[in-house]
């Protein structure tokens, strides 16, 4: 079973009276528990596609199944709840909540999904250790470096054990050294926790790490590479 299925998905933006096609007729299966990278030049539609898969945007037409759910049929509240339970986000600019410290930022999605306090503490501590920030739990985002912030953001995205983790150019705002370390961390966490990661990136290093690569140009898929075999059911 696919983690995400798109059928004939199209999306265009309106700029004044002009229609800007961003995606046209996308058919795509994203395999579960894989590290999938969306690759393509600037303006090709990577972010748009990621937003659709992450259920924060809706297509103009087509079908979209995420973790087996027909998400296009869900109302706003149901879709919000769906995201809280099944999807984690890692942003290019980290997007931590500035008034919450590292611990509280990671804890936030667990509060949203109603996890009990003791269990929350256990999971956050475990994640802080997994991203190597056990000693930074009480630091506010402003007191952390870019790399550290992105580690907190990764821990936050993984907190609810989501089926799907979305990341739009997560290393673009980091220097190449830190970026490589962050990539390494994400790749390991993805393997360990058997989650589906979907990335967008220009970065050849990211592409090199991918299980699956999806190539996009001008809103069309131009190629799909599956580099690892199907997992046994």
């Amino acid at each position, binding site marked *: 079973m696919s983690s995400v299925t798109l059928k004939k998905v199209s999306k265009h933006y309106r700029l004044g009276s002009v229609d800007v096609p961003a995606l046209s007729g996308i058919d795509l299966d994203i395999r579960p528990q894989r590290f999938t990278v969306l690759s393509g030049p600037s303006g090709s539609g990577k972010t748009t596609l990621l937003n659709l898969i992450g259920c924060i*945007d809706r297509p103009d037409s087509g079908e979209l199944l995420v973790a087996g759910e027909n998400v296009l049929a869900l109302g706003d509240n149901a879709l919000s709840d*769906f995201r809280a339970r099944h999807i984690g986000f890692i942003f290019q600019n980290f997007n931590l909540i500035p008034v919450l410290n590292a611990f509280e930022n990671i804890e936030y*999605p667990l509060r949203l999904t109603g996890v009990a306090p003791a269990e929350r503490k256990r999971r956050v501590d475990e994640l802080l250790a997994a991203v190597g920030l056990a000693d930074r739990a009480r630091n506010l985002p402003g007191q952390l470096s870019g790399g550290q912030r992105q580690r907190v953001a990764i821990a*936050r995205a993984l907190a609810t054990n989501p089926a799907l983790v979305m990341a739009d150019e997560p290393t673009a705002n980091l220097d190449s050294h830190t970026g490589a370390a962050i990539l390494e961390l994400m790749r390991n966490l993805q393997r360990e926790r058997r989650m589906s990661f979907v990335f967008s990136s220009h970065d050849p290093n990211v592409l090199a790490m991918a299980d699956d690569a999806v190539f996009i140009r001008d809103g069309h898929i131009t190629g799909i590479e599956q580099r690892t075999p199907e997992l046994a059911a």
Partner: protein
Amino acid sequence: MNAFSLALRNLLRNRRRSLTTLLAMIIGASAILLFGGYSRNIDLGLETGFVRGSGHLQLQHRDYFLYGTGNPAAYGIAGYSRIVTELQRDPVLAPMLNVVTPSLSIGGIAGNFNAGVSRTVFGSGVDVAGQNTLYQWNDYGFPGVGKTSPLTGSSADAAVIGTGVARVLQLCAPLQVKNCPAAQTSTQDAAQGTAAPDDIAALSAQEAGQGEPQSATRIELLAANAHGAPNVAGLNVIKAEAMGVKEYDDMAVLLHLEKAQQLIYGKEDPKVTAIVLQLKHTSQMPAARARLAELLTGPLQGFDLEVHDFATLNPQYGQITGMFAAILGFIAILIGGIVLFTVSNTMSMAVVERTVEIGTLRAMGLRRVGIRRLFVCEGLLLGALGAVLGALVALALAWLINHAGLTWLPPGNVEPVPLTVRVWGEPAMIIKTALGLMLVATLSAWWPARRAARLDIVDALRHV
């Protein structure tokens, strides 16, 4: 980390802006409370004045209030002492009563025939002991209690007149009234009328007993008796007292009840025009009225009486308190409007600044209502902080004002009284103001919060 601690942290994030907003609310809240405390003091001061003067409730003959002043004698209450006793003994009424005292109002003409001048006056015959008890009422702790009726301990024919009466009757000099200029136009008529007309003099002499020396402050009070015939009482004015309101000051003559009764009823059964009831507390008025209504249709049915409260007897009470309430309402609306715009401006700026954060929270699965709650909580918290700090500032300022030794002249008063604002001890006013401020602050956060909740997630995340 609940909604409020999150809201507090976000408010602390932009301290300067939050402080400016808070300051506006503190100034607004304390302005409302200080003016409210000032007007509350006026209301209670007026109430105290009227309750001391004319009691809480008066029993009068039916229609006396509307028509009686034209002919008080016709509206007398006969057998009033039985009524007074009945009221004092009533098991329901008695515990509420401070005093029950009769009074008799007379319309007449007062003349100083030595000077050949006279004028129409409004006389009140009062029971001095009862009057003194009335004066002691001080349920709201105003300064300057312990005033007694100037008639206390005076002889039976003693009278107290308003300074206006003293002026017209040319009694300022013997009564040592200050600020009482003598008339400029020398009155030729007065020079001619050196003595009272023979008939009045005769009546007066008959009344006072022969051969008494005419004192410099003696006046004659001429009134129609119960049968419509003129009668005269010789009064010895012992004091001229300023009565506050000019119309009253120009007409007031206070005399002993017995003297007034002799004048109107002669040797007949004496009557009064009002039975004044003063309660221990104003809050007991409805209960007392209810009981009086029962008594008037029961044991006191034959007397044909009606009940009036001090607000009806003194219409200016309602006028003045109504005016202050209107001003206070106007100020409150004005300040509410300012707070509304200040808070909504602050919250709108916060929404714009935190657009990306809103997008992030929504992406992570926070529902729209959660975003709305976030900002509404901030507004509510701002309102609560503003209300609490505003109340504290108002209390401090009120204390300063009350201890600064300021005085002012309230309407209807003769002497300046200390300027007092009642904030402390008015919890209802403080709570109403605080709730109002919190409501306004919450409402003003509502629209920005709603806008924040309706942001498109992708647009919000793209916001720079």
